[in-house]
């Protein structure tokens, strides 16, 4: 069984196996040999107080088998040198991590001072016994979550010494999910067990094949390397079938990563699709609107941390309207103060808005400092879940959902509101719209505010996955422009398709050429693509084009 460990660690492993073996033997004797008695806990605890290593080892075994309510706490305390005893009364106490003293027998707070107590000492043999006891306790633990974790842990560690325990646990298990986990753990052990029968191995291989993930693959490869004949054939066929499944999952995972990246690109670019795409204003300060949104999130979270810690999970929901308002007002101010004097002069607009972006960056740097600011994730965005062979983090998933929401809301505003109607009228034919009584100046300002506000909302989402620093906006501005240009100016669906396809293409290129070269290739691709279709994927047709 040392074969499963690295060669250099073989000696250590052998020692550990010996210890585990002894501990296991003791445990088995105790668990099945002598029925646990109610007052046995006193004898066990007294062993701890004897201050001898073999006695301590025995005590550990007895404790693990006793099923005492305090057993887990005592063993944890022992491992961290928090188990104490009184040398004269032989009473045993443990401290919790905070340092409070408890009576080991009852688990209640002890009314004594820690002053006269001695620590229960540890050596390597005791530590080994302790680890084994903890593992066994969790395999047989009454808590289903712990049992499941223990089964997974055995599956991963392939610790052969746990075999008997796993079989015992399997026989008793009623929860189908945990039962499956134990079956898989058993199969993992059998697949590499030296004295397993052929039938057992074949069964193990079938179980592993049904599990079908990367870990199972590793076990099957190990099994195939050591086995002969029918077992080897079964293992190899399982490997071949798993390879195919894994490749499919890997590609799906890449698609998922790509969609995730694409949604980030889309979020950053969608506001620009309004200001640049629909209105034709080259807003180089767009990235700074995103930055303003991110800093709004930061301020909201700081406020919540200081005054209303309970609201932290709602911080993003609070930040979204605020970010929209702040970035939107900033956008309207920029439009009224600068851009409106520059309509029809796109290159000048580009320069002036670049100047504004520099000012905003420096203003934030002066106000908040040049360092990254810490924006936390609410609890519902933390963690991940498995979907088939996909590993999906909640944070990324919510960003995709959020992006879709923003996109649909924007479409709704443009298609179904009077403001959207007027805005489209102005962009399609400014003079005609004006003749129809639309206040084009007001529409310009509001449309610019809308685009900027959406950039601010994007900032709320991006604050979750990127560093919130004064440079946040700059890192998105080139990408955003390329997405809009690639998708076709004046076309939100084009922006959507462009962002998602660029994201997916990027993630599929990355494994082959690396992240940086992949990005370079995409840039070159877009440059060449624009030569072929200067107006993007979905070009507007008609009179508005040359305007």
């Amino acid at each position: 069984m040392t074969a499963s460990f690295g060669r250099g660690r073989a000696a250590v492993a052998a020692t550990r196996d010996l210890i585990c073996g002894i501990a296991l033997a003791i445990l088995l004797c105790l668990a099945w040999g002598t029925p646990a008695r109610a007052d046995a806990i006193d004898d066990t605890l007294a062993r701890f107080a004897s201050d001898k290593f073999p006695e301590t080892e025995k005590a550990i075994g007895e404790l693990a088998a006793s099923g005492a309510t305090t057993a887990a706490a005592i063993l944890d305390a022992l491992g961290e040198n928090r188990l104490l005893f009184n040398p004269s009364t032989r009473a045993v106490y443990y401290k919790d991590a905070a340092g409070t003293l408890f009576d080991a027998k009852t688990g209640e707070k002890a009314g004594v001072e820690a002053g006269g107590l001695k620590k229960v000492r540890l050596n390597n043999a005791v530590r080994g016994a302790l680890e084994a006891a903890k593992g066994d306790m969790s395999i047989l633990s009454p808590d289903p979550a712990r049992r499941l974790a223990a089964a997974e842990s055995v599956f991963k560690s392939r610790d052969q010494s746990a075999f008997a325990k796993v079989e015992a646990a399997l026989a008793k298990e009623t929860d189908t999910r945990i039962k499956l986990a134990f079956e898989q753990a058993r199969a993992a052990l059998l697949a590499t067990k030296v004295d397993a029968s052929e039938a057992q191995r074949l069964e193990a291989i079938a179980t592993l094949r049904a599990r079908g993930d990367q870990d199972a693959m590793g076990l099957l490869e190990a099994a195939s390397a050591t086995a002969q004949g029918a077992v080897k054939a079964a293992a190899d066929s399982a490997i071949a079938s798993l390879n195919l499944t894994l490749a499919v999952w890997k590609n799906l995972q890449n698609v998922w990563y790509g969609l995730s990246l694409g949604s980030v690109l889309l979020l950053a670019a969608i506001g620009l699709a309004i200001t640049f795409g629909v209105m034709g204003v080259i807003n180089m300060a767009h990235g700074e609107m995103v930055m303003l949104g991110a800093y709004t999130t930061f301020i909201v979270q700081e406020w919540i941390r200081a005054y209303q810690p309970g609201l932290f999970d709602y911080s993003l929901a609070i930040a979204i309207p605020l970010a929209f308002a702040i970035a939107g007002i900033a956008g309207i101010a920029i439009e009224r103060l600068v851009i409106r004097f520059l309509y029809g002069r796109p290159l000048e607009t580009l320069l002036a808005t670049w100047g504004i972006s520099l000012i905003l960056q420096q203003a934030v740097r002066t106000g908040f400092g040049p360092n990254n600011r810490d924006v936390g994730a609410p609890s519902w965005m933390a963690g991940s879940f498995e979907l088939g062979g996909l590993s999906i983090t909640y944070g990324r998933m919510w960003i995709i959902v959020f992006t879709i929401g923003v996109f649909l809301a924007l479409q709704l505003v443009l298609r179904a509101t009077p403001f959207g109607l007027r805005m489209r009228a102005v962009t399609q034919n400014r003079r005609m719209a004006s003749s129809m009584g639309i206040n084009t100046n007001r529409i310009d300002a509001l449309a610019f505010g809308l685009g900027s506000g959406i950039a601010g909302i994007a900032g709320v989402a991006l604050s979750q996955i990127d560093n919130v620093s004064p440079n946040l906006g700059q890192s998105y501005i080139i990408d955003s422009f390329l997405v809009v240009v690639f998708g076709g100016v004046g076309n939100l669906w084009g922006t959507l398709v462009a962002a998602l396809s660029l994201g997916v293409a990027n993630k599929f290129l990355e494994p082959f050429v690396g992240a940086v070269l992949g990005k370079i290739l995409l840039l070159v691709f877009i440059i060449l693509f624009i030569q072929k279709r200067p107006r993007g994927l979905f070009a507007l047709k008609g009179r508005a084009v040359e305007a």
Partner: protein
Amino acid sequence: MTSARLLDLRGAIFAVVLIAAAILVPIAALAVPPASPFHVPAYVIALTGKYLCYALLAVALDLVWGYCGILSLGHGAFFALGGYAMGMYLMRQIGARGVYANPNLPDFMVFLNWHDLPVAWWGFNSFGYALLMVLAVPGVLAFAFGWFAFRSRVTGVYLSIITQAMTYALLLAFFRNDMGFGGNNGLTDFKDILGWNVQAEPTRAALFSLSAIALLIGYLIARAVTMSKFGKVLVAIRDAESRTRFLGYRVENYKLLVFTLSAMMAGVAGALYVPQVGIINPSEFAPANSIEAVIWVAVGGRGTLVGAAIGAVLVNFGKTYFTGALPEYWLFALGALFVLVTLFLPKGIVGTLGQLFARERRAAVGARGNRVPAVAE
């Protein structure tokens, strides 16, 4: 007034100033004793030499932007490529004096455990070849880029954005160690140029004079181009591209030629810049640098050439002053400059002054005409 000479009054003053600087500054730096009030300290030479290189870049940019309406946000890339070509020559001149004392490979290649000189580096121990590359690399890139872009009629803002994407792609590429151009750290620790120590004061003075002369030559070339019939077509393209095309001119060829020429001038500026500042690294490709160069031209006055050079020197002087005295406020000042110049001084300093003079003269003589090309779009 349309039959203007190659050197009008403005150009003549510019030429005299540059020639005087090229001759007098080295004398003031080397021959005048340090105690004298006319002595020019070494750091001033290094600084002003750098400004002159920027001025040449600005003239190159003005040629395409001011006269042909091509707002390139990627001229910093041509500048940097010229700089890299010169930097590679300077790296090869280090020879065995590097930290690893490898006679064949620059230090960073030894560090990366390479054994052979990459093909891209072959020939760079010859100064002539390096000079050729200073012109050829930016020129070929600009030609290839322009060939595609102008043929498919990518114009205006779209062109600006893809030039920006170009320099951004180059920035990312040069950051990679695998490219073989020193990665993140770029090229530095130069020792000799043509056998002279780059750090020595006489070399620095000579480089300063060369920069002044290069700027003058660049100005004269640009001026000759814009004065010619070719230049008139460029202005026509700037003001009404479709109309010029319908009149039968091959717009893309005109654009391609002037874009390539401008890129080569930018490459020369970069090549003169590198030995004076002693380093070239990928951050020179940063899109922000290219946009900053555009504001030099805008401040000085686009379509005036002299103005571009003056704008480059003024803005960079301001930058040096601000980053030294009030580092917090430099970006505020630069940002405000972008906004205010585009809003209130669209013709730039020289353009506005020229307009004022022209109006006075017209009032005095009753003459017609305006030598300053109108700034459109």
